[in-house]
């Protein structure tokens, strides 16, 4: 590999990383009542198994997806391994069950559309069917 190729590779990698870090996530819900605003801490609470005024059931995208990593980083504020060990504790102590999991964004859109009072996350800019409302956008 020549020096020029190496430099171009590093520059393109840096641009990719910067582009990835700029990617934003929208939190979307299938609401049955009038849209309300929802805070980041309330979303975190819903996805960590707590109760909230919104009474929404969380849906997550399976591990390994980039959109999940961004959501965990910017909304939940915990690394993937910590979230997995947290849910092992909740499940095997009988206290709570992890959110419903779907495999990709298409499945997430379909699940949210078909299930009232569900809440999930998607990449910003994705086309949303009518019953879905954006409640929050990450930085």
């Amino acid at each position, binding site marked *: 590999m020549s020096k020029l190729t190496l430099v171009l590779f590093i520059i393109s990698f840096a641009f990719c990383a910067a582009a990835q870090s700029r990617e934003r996530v929208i939190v979307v819900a299938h609401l049955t009542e009038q849209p309300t605003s929802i*805070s980041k801490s309330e979303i975190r*609470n819903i996805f960590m198994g707590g109760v909230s005024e919104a009474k929404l059931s969380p849906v997550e995208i399976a591990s390994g997806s980039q959109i999940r990593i961004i959501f965990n980083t910017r909304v939940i504020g915990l*690394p993937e*391994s910590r979230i*997995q060990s947290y849910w*092992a*504790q909740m499940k*095997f*102590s*009988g206290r709570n069950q992890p959110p419903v999991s779907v495999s990709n964004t298409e499945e997430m859109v379909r699940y949210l559309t078909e299930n009232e009072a569900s809440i999930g996350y998607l990449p910003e800019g994705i086309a949303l069917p009518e019953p879905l409302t954006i409640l929050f956008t990450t930085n």
Partner: protein
Amino acid sequence: MLRRFASFFLITSLFSHGVLADTSNDLEFSGFARVVGGYLSTDEAKYEGYDNSFSVSQKSLAAVQADYTFNDYFSMSGQLLWHSDESRQSGVEWLYLTYQPNASWQFNIGRLRTPLLKFSDVIDVGFAYPWLNAPQQLYSGYLFSQYEGANARYLGYYNEVTFSVELYWGNFDDEILSNGTSSDVEVDGMFGGVIETSYRGFQFRVATSFANDTAVELDELQPLIQGLRAAGFGDTADTLDINGASSSYLLGVGYDSLNWFVTAEIIKVESEIDVLAAIDSSYITFGYYFDEILLHATIASSRQSLNEIDNPIPIGFSPELDALYFAVEEVNSYFPTDDLDSLTLGARWDFRTNLAFKTEVSFLKGKEGKTSFFELDVNNTEFDRRATLYQLGIEWVF
């Protein structure tokens, strides 16, 4: 031993081949397993069953959990646990019915695990916590790990603060292993409560546990108790009758973030039983994440104030009285005196979302003349109560 490991491979291979995968929407199977190996640097004592030969038969285990949902409100859960350690009982660890009328309330009835410490009710699920060996000064086996009874749990929130309140009541009747000695323990009327709050990354936990009537059967002591009564030393005999109340108080704090965490717990155990001591134990753990790798350090300590038995028996009057005198002295050294300081350094690598590899080293510093959680002859003055425990293992949830 081969038979015990055969059970382990049966449970894990059934899951590997999907035989026990979800069978319907109402019935779900899941489970966890761990294989842990360890080596202790000394041949003068054992610690947590480890000696100075590498062993995987102290902490390895596997469990299957079945959850059956009857309807929106009622469900039933059972957990079958297999231990590699022959001194721990394998079998039904959990079996309870749950009633959940809404998202805030949950009621359970059946055989349940005691929720005193942060990881008490998942102490067998190594995947749920950072260490291979949770700080023994707090998580050692002689606190009542499970009970048969009921609990009620309430989840709530106020602005950004979330909280849970849990109350439980039940009875305990099991064999407890402490420092290599097993005894039958029966607790009538054990109850307690836990309050947990969290605000952003901060967590705060207080818990209490009260055991009204604790009765410990130690058959080895019966001849001595009878001998003391026959010789007119009824008061001394009474102190050996292990029957009374005990109470535990716990305070825990923690902070979790994307890159690091800190967690600490402090527990105080008090007992009106003469020969059981008051214990103050605590630990603090700091961890830092490098992507999937977690590096952590834990400092833990315990101090036990033992109520020594008064020995009023005169010596030199008769061989029978001399024998009783020395028997009481022997008993004085029989009960554990677990003063121990430790530093544990460890690493955890989550190389799959449900598999973690762990390794850790614990530097143990006990006190001379005390058992310090070691299995040893307490009169052994050769051993300075210092040892290093090396462990590595793999944790799996499925």
